[in-house]
């Protein structure tokens, strides 16, 4: 008997097996993607799973696995400051060496929230898997910062998700830092410090209760360039009543530049603290 006839069948078996594996994955993916269980349902299942397996000899591997994954996830979220609150995906194409998924991911980075939609293309080459992001759309909370919108626009254009995450977390870190600093000074010097736009605004106003009309405003912007590098930029604006402070005009005019050199020398917190002390001592 011709051995090639076996080959024909063997080839078909192999291709069928591959097809079945792919279909099974497709089915499972879709099942996974179209299902949702609340935290409550999961907690209930954990306890009923435990009673279910108590009579058996094998250890509760699933529960242990779940716990490890949860610890890893909470560690990463804490470490990076990036919290994912919601994630859904849909596999739109799947072949042996090519998978296309649509993702929707929302969460927050420190106190700023974001929502991302993107397409993830995975290609299996001989040795490695290549991942490409396309159709990226970013919605984020950043006030009306035009720097940030420009950066986001560019990231969307290039599908630059990694840079987005890195820059956004550095931006959010500064944002958080500014909020904490403002809160700290408001608590430390409640008579002098006011927050016209609240803790989330980008400026604070310093007033000496015994010198009405005289005001210093510290403006703290967080700049982001097109590449996504963030730097804090602080400035001092002065407001002086028309009469009475003539002899101090020179000092006041020099204040902004002195504040800038103080920032370089002492850092943000100490520079602001010094300035507040000066304002407080004015009589």
């Amino acid at each position, binding site marked *: *008997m011709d051995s090639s*006839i*076996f080959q024909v*069948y*063997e080839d*078909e*078996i192999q291709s*069928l*097996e591959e*097809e*079945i594996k792919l*279909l*099974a994955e*497709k*089915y499972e993916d*879709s*099942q*996974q993607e179209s*299902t*949702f*269980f609340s935290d409550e*349902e*999961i907690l*209930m*299942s954990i306890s*009923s*799973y435990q009673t*279910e397996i108590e009579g058996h000899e094998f250890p509760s591997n*699933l*529960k242990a*696995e*779940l716990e490890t*994954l*949860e*610890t*890893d*996830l909470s*560690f*990463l979220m804490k*470490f*990076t400051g990036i919290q*994912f609150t919601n*994630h859904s*995906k849909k596999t739109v194409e799947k072949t042996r060496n090519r998978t296309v998924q649509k*993702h929707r991911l929302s969460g927050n980075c420190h106190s700023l929230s974001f929502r991302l939609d993107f397409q993830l293309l995975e290609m299996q080459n001989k040795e490695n898997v*290549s*991942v*490409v*992001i*396309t159709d990226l759309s970013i919605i984020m909370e950043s006030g009306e910062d035009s720097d940030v919108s420009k950066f986001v626009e560019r990231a969307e254009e*290039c*599908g*630059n*998700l*990694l*840079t987005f*995450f*890195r820059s956004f*977390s*550095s931006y959010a870190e500064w944002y958080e830092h500014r909020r904490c600093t403002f809160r700290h000074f408001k608590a430390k010097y409640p008579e002098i410090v006011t927050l016209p736009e609240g803790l989330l605004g980008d400026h604070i106003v310093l007033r000496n209760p015994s010198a009405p009309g005289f005001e210093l405003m510290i403006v703290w912007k967080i700049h982001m360039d097109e590449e996504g590098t963030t730097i804090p930029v602080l400035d001092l604006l002065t407001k002086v009543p028309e009469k009475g402070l003539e002899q101090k005009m020179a000092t006041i005019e020099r204040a902004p530049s002195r504040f800038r050199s103080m920032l370089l020398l002492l850092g943000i917190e100490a520079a602001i603290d010094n300035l507040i002390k000066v304002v407080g001592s004015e009589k």
Partner: protein
Amino acid sequence: MEGGKACAPSGVFAHLEMLEMQSHEAAVKQEEMEQQEEKLARLKATVQELRLQRDDLQAKVDLQQKGQLGKEGVVLPPAQPSARAVLEWKIKSLKAMLRLFYLTGISGKLTKKGVCFCISTAYEGTYLDSYYLDLLTEPEVQIYRHSVPIFIPLEEIAKKYLQTDIRRFLSVLSDHLNAYVQRRYQADQLQKHFSDQIEGKLQRNSLCDLLVFNYNVSRKSKTFLFKVRLLYGDLCCSLPTEAVVSCASDAPASVAEMAAAHSGLFRRVALHKAFRSFGSA
């Protein structure tokens, strides 16, 4: 006669032997045939079975997709799922979420004695190499194992930040790795897509912070050779700090101007994109 007498039996024996052998061979052949037929039947049955299995699955997948098309959004599982199924679902979705951290540039998992971090790199939307850092945290933070290339100043960065600020350490390291991978990617793209313009070999060092190559520029049906030397002075940056483009000293002024313009472009635009813009110009 005697010899004949003696011969005849031996002739018979030989004949018998031959017959026996023939029948044995036939039996073996028969057996082989049967085995092959059996094997064929088995294969046929397997194929049949697999086809059925495939059709079943296909039908299930089709039904699933129809169901999803009918109802936007969430499709409820058909029956009350078992506790095990719910846990398996949760495990899968946690794994998917953990995998997403790969996209942020830093992912990792806790180990018995510390953390194993993975730094991923990308050029725009294309994810490139990942590097691993196995850190021990007790009694002090130290690098146990890593896959960071030798030419990345890991020790220097570690000395500066590892003990005081692990986040900063990883962020600086990631800047170095991303910039290196991006420089390499640009050089690769240049070789891949513009080899017809490149004259000779593109030379680069392992850190890809120095690139030297020559390329042809045609102007008014004449071809000029430009020599380029790109130096990436900032190791955390994927654009060169120094771009020298020179042409032959006897080239016309307009060509020299063009070389100067290219030099400016190389400092602002990724290498392969700069070449793409020459093509369209």
